[in-house]
């Protein structure tokens, strides 16, 4: 008799080492004889994770959890085995999830059993208000998410909502909470009791800051929670005005370019101010390297439009200097890497011009030679035709003007310069027979497709 009693108690001794707890992802809490799921709205679902923990030094083998009661179901068991290792193994528990959901307002209960452990599960369902979402917001029925859609940053956006009591008895709204990036407004003082069919309205607003891409939040109505989602994008930069310090332009000039906005930028914007040159030369060149921004010797400078300002800095400065080069053509300014409301591309024209003479000298220091040196540029790339008129010491012209056509030499020279511009230093020598000292001065005329240019009187010295 004594032996039989010991054997009968043995299974209970082993089960006494098992305990039932809830686990919220961080902490465990012991479960007593009852566990209350709380109050939820009709149609909502609440889930609780339970754990059966083996506190003994022996492994435990148990059956799967069983729940009996309307609305309660076991939705997950961790793994296919119910073998629980002995303590202190970190895996000395079996976890399972019990979910509850019901559509009718009432009090609910169920019995949870696992091994020799058991507990009464309780839950209360209250009527749920009906939420109406007004445009431009929409509701995603599959996810239960309130969609704000694509929103421009740095601007206010809002949607109106209505909570109606669809039930046949009064419904108390005790909580309307908005979290995340969104804010609520026009919310009636709570709690408020809605008569059957009665509704209360409120609004949810958001002003996403510049740079926002994803916008998230939540709306809680009593015990029901709705996710709120949207996406943000920065507004287009108002089309900048690209302006210059002059109205007309010529070769071999330096000018300042500035950028201003017609209205303040809502968000900071950055990009590049680019400069491109299209020569209208006669096919000899395809570019002019001197057409560039002077800062950094580049054709692209970063710009920054600051939020709430109409000013745009270029390379950190209020303006940027650039050269017009020595080639007739078109200089085009464009903006890149910024989203702009319009095309701000601006061009300036460098018109063809007669040869511009920077300096000229005449030398008779070599016996039997008269040397003329001219430093100039020809933005038409058509130089070559020229004439030299010599004068004696009394100012009388010697003979007739000497003409020449060096077009082919200039063409070869310009081609060899590989798009570095049309400036040139020309040296012309004249062998002289007779008394060289009688030649006192020379005047040179250079001709290109745009006209003629004179050196003025050059004195041999």
């Amino acid at each position, binding site marked *: 008799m004594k032996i039989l009693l010991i054997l009968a108690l043995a299974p209970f001794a082993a089960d006494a080492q098992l305990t039932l707890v809830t686990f919220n992802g961080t902490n465990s809490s012991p479960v007593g004889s009852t566990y209350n799921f709380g109050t939820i709205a009709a149609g909502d679902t609440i889930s609780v994770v339970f754990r059966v923990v083996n506190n003994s030094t022996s492994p435990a083998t148990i059956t799967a959890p069983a729940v009996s009661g309307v609305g309660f179901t076991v939705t997950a068991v961790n793994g296919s085995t119910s073998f629980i290792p002995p303590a202190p193994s970190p895996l000395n528990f079996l976890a399972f999830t019990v979910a509850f959901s019901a559509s009718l307002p009432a009090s609910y209960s169920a019995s949870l059993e696992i091994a020799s452990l058991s507990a009464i599960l309780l839950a209360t369902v209250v009527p749920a208000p009906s939420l109406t979402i007004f445009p431009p917001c929409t509701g995603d029925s599959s996810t239960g998410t309130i969609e704000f859609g694509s929103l421009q940053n740095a601007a206010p956006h809002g949607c109106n909502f209505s909570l109606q009591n669809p039930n046949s008895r009064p419904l108390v709204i005790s909580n309307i909470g908005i979290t995340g990036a969104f804010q609520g407004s026009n919310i009636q003082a709570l709690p408020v009791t809605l008569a059957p069919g009665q509704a209360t309205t409120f609004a949810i607003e958001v002003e996403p800051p510049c740079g926002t891409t994803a916008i998230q939040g939540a709306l809680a109505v009593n015990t029901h929670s709705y996710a709120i989602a949207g996406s943000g994008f920065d507004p287009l930069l108002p089309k900048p005005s690209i302006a210059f310090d002059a109205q007309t332009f010529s070769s071999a000039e330096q000018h300042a370019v500035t950028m201003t906005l017609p209205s303040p930028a809502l968000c900071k914007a950055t990009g590049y101010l680019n400069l491109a040159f299209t020569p209208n030369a006669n096919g000899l060149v395809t570019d002019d390297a*001197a057409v560039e921004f002077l800062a950094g010797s580049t054709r692209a400078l970063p710009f920054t439009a600051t939020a709430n300002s109409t000013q745009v800095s270029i390379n950190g400065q209020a303006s940027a200097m650039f*050269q017009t080069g020595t080639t007739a053509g078109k200089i085009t300014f464009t903006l890149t890497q910024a989203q702009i409301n319009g095309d701000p591309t601006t061009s300036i024209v460098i018109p063809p011009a007669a040869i511009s003479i920077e300096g000229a000298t005449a030398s008779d220091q*070599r016996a039997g030679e008269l040397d003329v040196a001219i*430093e100039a540029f020809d933005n038409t790339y058509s130089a070559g035709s020229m004439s030299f008129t010599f004068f004696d010491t009394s100012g009388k012209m010697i003979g007739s003007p000497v003409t020449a056509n060096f077009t082919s*030499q200039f063409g070869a020279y310009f081609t060899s310069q590989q798009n570095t511009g049309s400036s*040139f230093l020309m040296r012309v020598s004249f*062998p002289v027979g007779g*008394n060289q000292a009688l030649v006192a001065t020379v005047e040179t005329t250079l001709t290109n497709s745009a006209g003629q240019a004179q050196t003025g009187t050059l004195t041999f010295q």
Partner: protein
Amino acid sequence: MRLVLVFYFAAVAWAQSALDRPSLGMMLDPGGRIRPVFGISGSVTVGDPQGSGVLSVACSREFCLTKTRDAIIFNGQETGAPVGPALFAFRGNSAWIYFPQVRQLAQWQDGQITPVALAITGEVLSLRVPSGGAMEFAVRRDNVTWIVNAQDQAVDSIPTESGPAMLLTDGVLYARAGAAILRRDDGSEIRFPVEGAESFSALGEGYVQVRAGGTSYAIHTARGRERMFQLPESPP
């Protein structure tokens, strides 16, 4: 008398091609590198660095001299020199060099440096050798800038108290009150607005480089073609 004029277009005078790319001279960038400057006033491009560790540079029509910490460099050839920067004055194929840090004057000729005795008081800012004239110096004494001869006798004054000053062939360039002022020997003046001019150097024949903050300008000092323009910053 019959004058025969037969022209030809060839490289006779300077053993160069008849058409060349104009060069203004050499600029000194903020990184202590010298770079050739090509083009004409208002439209220049800057070439690749020709040297680094340069403290001073000056160019005449004929050649350029650079000063590193302790050498004068001409066409890649180094000649030992006193430490520190240098001031230059050219005459033909020779140059006079003043070393402010040791207050020593020297003559440079064919890569050789010969010290020259000098008894000038004050801070020497610039020197020049006028064609057919005697050497002159711009010196600052007690916030007054003078032009003195080699005997330390004042021959003129420059109305600048603290800014840079540079003696030119036929005038002086000095900084004062947000401007670089080109004053000719005939008393005429041309003002070029530039804030914070820190130094002047002979960029080339008829061109002065002005450094102001991180920006460099060139002033074309040739009579009748005076102009200031910005020099392109060196690409990184």
